[in-house]
């Protein structure tokens, strides 16, 4: 204990022997750690937003379909279980959110234009917390129930179709007998979305209304359930799997949107690579500082060895010195990162590159997301790799022959 105390004292005082060098190194470590944490938070925030937007366009962490629906999402591929039975089962299973719906391709036409869209026949009350649409931010109104006769389309689509709230459009799709099913709807609301393509591609109508239009009785194409964390959907998946009958398939969102699923995995890997790359740059400075510190103190190291300090204690002293430097740098870097993330909590407006961001599926405002795992990763990498980086100069210092070390600098 005494030896550790004396080593700590020597390490601490030696650290401040060359103030300028230590401060420069601390600044480098702090900025490096800040970059690790802040850039990771920014990346995570962007990915999180992309995934949230992506998942909200599906929407649903776990989905049930007819086995052929994913290859051919038409109305013939219905879930064979009646909607009433599905609702009874999902309603009592304890999911955070759940819904059943009809989701099929359709064509929407105004007096001037036609567009292919994805038609969502929904129960608006069930989808309020699932949807990417903010019901309260709709021009006009949102659907009022599953039997609502109106239709809600995106603002961008309304521009394209040159239509507006109160005007009529015609929706055309196919029924299970491959006959054309069409009818006129009055546009009751225009929604906005983070991603403009959603405003162009999705239209909402009442589930009951669409079931009648497509002549599918009480059947739906999709049943979905949400968990609390999109990264951990397995518990929801297992629960849904236990609920449904044979003749359907159950998929996680990562399988339904493999691009987003892969991106999540890639980003987690990217964060580790990013943290290690920054550390490698830092480690050159750290090792150089330690090598210089050892080089300047060869005589003292020889003296301490001559006085009876064991080589392992010399090794310990240099490593403690390095760890102290890293711990202070980490503390400063963490505070810096936390401060900058807190101050940008309201989001970073990158609308200047909005088109590029949208091509990636990202919104034009980035919200840095500080995750404990990422902070632990950055701190852990710096401490663990820092320890290994300091081993070499520390080992060299401990291997000196006392008398050679004392006389070397004479």
């Amino acid at each position: 204990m005494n030896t550790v105390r004396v080593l700590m004292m020597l390490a601490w005082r030696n650290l401040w022997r060359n103030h300028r060098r230590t401060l420069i190194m601390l600044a480098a470590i702090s900025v490096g750690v800040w970059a690790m944490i802040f850039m990771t938070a920014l990346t995570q925030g962007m990915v999180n937003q992309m995934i949230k937007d992506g998942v909200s366009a599906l929407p649903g962490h776990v989905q049930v379909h007819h086995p052929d629906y994913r290859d051919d999402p038409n109305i013939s591929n219905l879930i064979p279980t009646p909607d009433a039975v599905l609702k009874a089962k999902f309603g009592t299973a304890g999911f955070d959110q759940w819904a059943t719906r009809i989701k099929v391709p359709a064509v929407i036409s105004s007096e001037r234009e036609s567009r292919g869209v994805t038609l969502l026949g929904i129960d608006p009350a069930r989808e309020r917390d699932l949807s990417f649409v903010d019901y309260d931010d709709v021009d006009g109104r949102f659907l009022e129930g599953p039997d609502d006769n109106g239709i809600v389309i995106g603002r961008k689509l309304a521009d394209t179709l040159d239509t507006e709230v109160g005007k009529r459009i015609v929706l055309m799709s196919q029924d299970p007998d491959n006959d054309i099913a069409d009818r006129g709807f009055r546009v009751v609301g225009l929604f906005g979305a983070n991603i403009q393509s959603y405003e162009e591609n999705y239209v909402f109508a009442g589930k009951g209304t669409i079931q009648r239009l497509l002549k599918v009785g009480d059947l739906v194409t999709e049943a979905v359930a949400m968990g609390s964390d999109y990264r951990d959907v397995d518990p929801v998946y297992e629960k849904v799997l236990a609920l449904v009958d044979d003749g359907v398939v159950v998929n996680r969102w990562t399988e339904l949107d493999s691009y987003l699923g892969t991106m999540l995995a890639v980003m987690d890997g990217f964060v580790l690579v990013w943290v290690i790359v920054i550390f490698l740059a830092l480690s050159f400075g750290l090792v150089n500082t330690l090598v210089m510190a050892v080089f300047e103190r060869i005589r003292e190291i020889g003296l301490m060895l001559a006085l009876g300090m064991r080589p392992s204690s010399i090794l310990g002293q240099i490593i403690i010195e390095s760890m102290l430097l890293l711990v202070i740098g980490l503390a400063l870097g963490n505070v810096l990162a936390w401060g900058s993330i807190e101050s940008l909590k309201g989001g970073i407006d990158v609308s200047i590159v909005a088109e590029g961001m949208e091509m990636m599926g990202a919104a034009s405002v980035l919200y840095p997301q500080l995750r404990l795992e990422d902070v632990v990763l950055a701190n852990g990498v710096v401490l663990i790799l820092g320890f290994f980086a300091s081993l070499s100069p520390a080992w060299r210092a401990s291997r000196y022959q006392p008398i050679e070390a004392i006389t070397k600098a004479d």
Partner: protein
Amino acid sequence: MTAVRCVDLCKTYLQGDQEIKALDHLSIEVDAGGFVCLSSPSGGGKTTLLNAIGGLDKPDSGEVWIEGRRIDLLSKGELADLRLRKIGFVFQAYNLIPVLTARENIEFVMQVQGVPAGARRERSTDILEEVGLTGLEDRRPAQMSGGQQQRVAVARAIVSKPTLVLADEPTANLDSKTADELMDLFSELNSKHKTTFIIATHDQRVMAHVPRLIRMLDGRIVDDIDQHAV
């Protein structure tokens, strides 16, 4: 009782292509409580002998015994332990740790030995008084004169009560008055604590001060004089 016994020590250095015999079949015995001065011209082998006795350097052949224990065969760790517990060193210069105060330098060896803080404090206070440094305990080496630094080094060498103190040119950087004071201090400690002192020097004042003077030349003992008898 014999404190130090060296038997047939040889040590050769290479200087360019030339072999320098620093120790040439040298044998010596020093009794416990002895006060011995090794003197030689530069390159005569006195520092090499001192380093071999202190376990800082290994001879090419021969044996080194400290208090009946052969040390030339010990491992690095065992030698470190021996130096920590049995031997006090005073070097010519650069012998203090610059980031520690005078008291901390004195306590350094005791701290590594694991002596409790209270006992360390007590002993360092006593020794500071003994070497005349009371009041300077909080000064760092850079804030002290050469003589004061050397006194701190002496205090550190003897504070843990080693049985053997090895001093290499301890007066080389001191003025004559400070050198005399230091030798008086050595003599006092030698008689008071019965500590064995072996001092390597070519300073005539130091040689005149010691009871036993060993003259060396080219790694061999050429004279071993009992100055009391003289």
